[in-house]
């Protein structure tokens, strides 16, 4: 569903000059032609001040005048063939981080290159006076770079230290600052060695890693943000005097009467005041079949109104509704993940003390041996410089950036770099049923036992409705409609079914009590809809959950790799057990409310297991947030996508297998990288300890080790996939 133009004002931000700014996500933009089509079309719309498309983020920014009379942007976009979604005000904080990183990178690059130019002259054998001058110039260039570009590392290191922890940025910051101060001291006292080049090029390399990492994550986030939101921004409410008013969802109060059209998501919890319809609860509770509602029924926010208009009496405000409760539950559940320490930081926790103690030992030993404070200090600082964990700090991010890009190409978004690290440790997998292992839409069962004539009439009637059952019946009929009598007077009765006249007979497809004119009540016949010819039942239809075609191969593959699988569902015992048996999953839990799903995951964590949760609904969100690592499939709601670490954008569960393959490869490469970086240090420290490290030695050794680590990380691109892991395109 595209943008409701009456909601535009609620999604816009007012600018100081009286104009309104609106951000839209338009996933369909893909080329220059789309840009000019959208921009030129919108420029001619009344009240639009400007329209600007961003092709990289697939977003459209519109400035418009007159907030009381906003332009019909959604309608215009739909007319020229683009689906747009209101994305709300952009989170400018993220953009700021990006431009801050780019600026820091530019300053570091400038300083590193200029200093390196001077250093080459010194290494080539400059006169002492020239060398002295070049050292002073280098010191002058390095200072702003270290202050300006180094902030990124100092602030992160300071934050860690303040909380009594240590991360990779601590030894980096210490190394950078000590290198600079020592070099400055040596320059002032006329020493031959200064390490300004090492400090700035180190900074440059590290910032490249950080910037790439940030870019990948931002791309994943903007792709996730761009999709449809579950709760409408604004709704129509019915006033006492019978008029309707369009108000923001947040300002709904209990007791207000909310109008819901067919196809609308329910914005707040409430009871049905008038009207009959059916609601789709698949996202809310995991129940796959539509539930009929009539005056007095209670419905929860997030469910989808299917067939007819309904007036809802709100029983809670938006922030007190089911959906808001789920989001709160989800935020509370994010416990296990914060206790996870990234591999890089685990290494840093050991590395930093060892390095700092070695430097101290070098100082004490040389002072005891030679009695020369300056010499002892120089050697202990050169130990710190040579061990400054450049390669180590790049070892993990390089692999993650490469992995993230590789996954992005296969339509998998990684929101957190450490998700792959956690994924390889997983030993238990919880699957949601509806929408994850099965399609959310029901499929017709035993359609072959229905007489072809009846089936054809049913399909012809079903084509007139958007009800999930009708869609399933229409999809099940493969034949043509040409050789049957045309249907006339087709109309859909909300909450009941579709009727039409053909060859003098009245055909009805729908609930059995309605279709038979009450001669058969809904409870005595079949549960599903029936087709009647002049009130006589000619066919009845049964529906089942359709298992995803790749589901069983994915499940058996996962089970063969030694993982313990179980299904957690809110659906009925019968449906869940049938599915579990069909897929060969031993354990299953049915009729689980979100709280129980969360408890199930938390219990697994308490038992020391590392669970992976795969789920898409609102009811899965708390469990997704609580589990050690979580994956949301393509069908997920915005709540599910927010809660999960990894989002499959393609409607194919084999993405999970791909993820495991990439995660295993990434772990191997990370270990290799860390191992190499440590090996480099083991070789280099004795040289530094003995006082052999010159600036040239430091520059060459550090750059070489960094480049090797980067190249090794890029090897992830060559990961070979088995056929079962290859995705449909």
């Amino acid at each position, binding site marked *: 569903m595209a943008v409701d133009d009456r909601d535009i004002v609620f999604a816009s931000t007012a600018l100081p000059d009286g104009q309104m700014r609106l951000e839209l996500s338009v996933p369909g933009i893909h*080329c*220059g032609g789309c*840009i*000019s089509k959208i921009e*030129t079309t919108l*420029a001619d719309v009344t009240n639009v001040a400007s329209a600007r*498309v*961003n*092709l*990289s*983020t697939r977003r459209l920014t519109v400035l418009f005048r007159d907030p009381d009379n906003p332009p019909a942007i959604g309608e215009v976009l739909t007319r020229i063939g683009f689906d747009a979604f209101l994305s709300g005000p952009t989170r400018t904080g993220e953009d700021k981080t990006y*431009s801050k990183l*780019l*600026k820091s990178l*530019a*300053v570091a690059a*400038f300083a590193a*290159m*200029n200093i390196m*130019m*001077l250093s080459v002259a010194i290494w080539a054998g400059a*006169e002492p006076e*020239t060398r002295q*001058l070049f050292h002073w*110039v280098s010191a002058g*260039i390095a200072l702003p770079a270290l202050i300006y570009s180094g902030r990124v590392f100092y602030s992160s290191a300071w934050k860690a230290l303040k909380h009594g922890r240590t991360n990779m940025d601590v030894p980096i910051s210490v190394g950078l600052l000590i290198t600079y101060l020592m070099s400055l001291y040596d320059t002032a006292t006329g020493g031959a060695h200064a390490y300004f080049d090492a400090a700035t090029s180190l900074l440059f390399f590290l910032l490249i890693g950080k910037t790439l990492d940030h870019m990948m994550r931002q791309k994943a986030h903007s792709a996730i943000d761009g999709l449809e939101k579950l709760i409408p921004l604004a709704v129509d409410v019915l006033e006492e005097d019978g008029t309707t008013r369009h108000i923001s969802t947040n300002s709904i109060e209990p007791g207000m009467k909310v109008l819901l059209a067919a196809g609308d998501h329910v914005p707040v919890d409430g009871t049905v005041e008038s009207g009959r319809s059916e609601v789709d609860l698949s996202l809310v509770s995991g129940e796959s079949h539509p539930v009929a509602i009539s005056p007095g029924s209670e419905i929860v926010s997030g469910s989808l109104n299917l067939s007819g208009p309904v007036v809802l009496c709100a029983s809670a405000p938006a922030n007190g509704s089911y959906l808001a409760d789920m989001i709160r539950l989800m935020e509370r559940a994010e416990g296990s993940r914060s206790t996870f320490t990234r591999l890089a930081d685990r290494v840093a926790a050991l590395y930093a003390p060892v390095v700092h103690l070695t430097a101290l030992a070098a100082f004490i030993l040389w002072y005891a041996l030679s009695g020369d404070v300056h010499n002892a200090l120089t050697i202990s600082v050169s130990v710190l410089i040579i061990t400054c964990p450049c390669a180590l700090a790049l070892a993990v991010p390089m692999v993650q950036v490469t992995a993230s890009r590789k996954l992005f190409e296969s339509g998998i978004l990684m929101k957190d770099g450490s998700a792959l690290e956690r994924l390889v440790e997983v030993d238990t997998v919880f699957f949601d049923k509806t929408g994850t292992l099965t399609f959310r839409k029901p499929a017709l069962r035993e359609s072959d036992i229905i007489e072809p004539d009846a089936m054809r009439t049913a399909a012809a009637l079903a084509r007139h409705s958007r009800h999930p059952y009708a869609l399933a019946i229409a999809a099940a009929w493969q034949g043509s409609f040409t050789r049957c009598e045309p249907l006339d007077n087709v109309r859909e009765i909300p909450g009941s079914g579709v009727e039409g006249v053909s060859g003098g007979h009245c055909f009805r497809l729908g609930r059995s009590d309605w279709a038979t004119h009450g001669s058969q009540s809904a409870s005595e016949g079949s549960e599903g809809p029936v087709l009647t010819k002049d009130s006589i039942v000619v066919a009845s239809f049964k529906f089942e959950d359709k298992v995803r075609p790749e589901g069983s191969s994915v499940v058996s593959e996962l089970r063969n790799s030694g993982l313990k699988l179980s299904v957690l569902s809110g659906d009925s015992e019968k449906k869940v057990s049938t599915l579990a048996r069909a897929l060969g999953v031993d354990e299953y839990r049915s009729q689980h409310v979100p709280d129980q799903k969360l408890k199930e995951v938390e219990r697994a964590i308490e038992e020391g297991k590392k669970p992976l949760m795969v789920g898409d609904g609102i009811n899965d969100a708390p469990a997704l947030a609580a589990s050690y690592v979580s994956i949301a499939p393509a069908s997920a709601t915005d709540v599910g996508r927010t809660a999960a670490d990894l989002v499959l954008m393609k409607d194919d569960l084999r993405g999970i297998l791909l993820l495991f393959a990439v995660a295993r490869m990434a772990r191997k490469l990370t270990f290799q990288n860390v191992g190499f970086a440590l090996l480099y240090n083991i070789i280099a420290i004795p040289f530094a300890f003995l006082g052999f490290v010159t600036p040239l030695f430091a520059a060459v050794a550090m750059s070489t080790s960094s480049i090797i680590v980067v190249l090794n990380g890029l090897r992830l691109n060559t990961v070979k996939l088995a056929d079962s892991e290859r995705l449909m395109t």
Partner: protein
Amino acid sequence: MTASYLYLIPVSLVLGGAGLAAFFWCLRNRQYDDLQGAAERILMNDPNEQDAGSNDA
């Protein structure tokens, strides 16, 4: 002698600094916000020229 070429150092720094300043200006001017879009926009007609283009076709 070497000393007479020393003016090259400030020259190189000023040139480098100018490049850096240009980059900062681009960044502030939002020229890096949409790299893909910028590449496509080269091929688009200006709004004023579009009429003339369609007349020719």
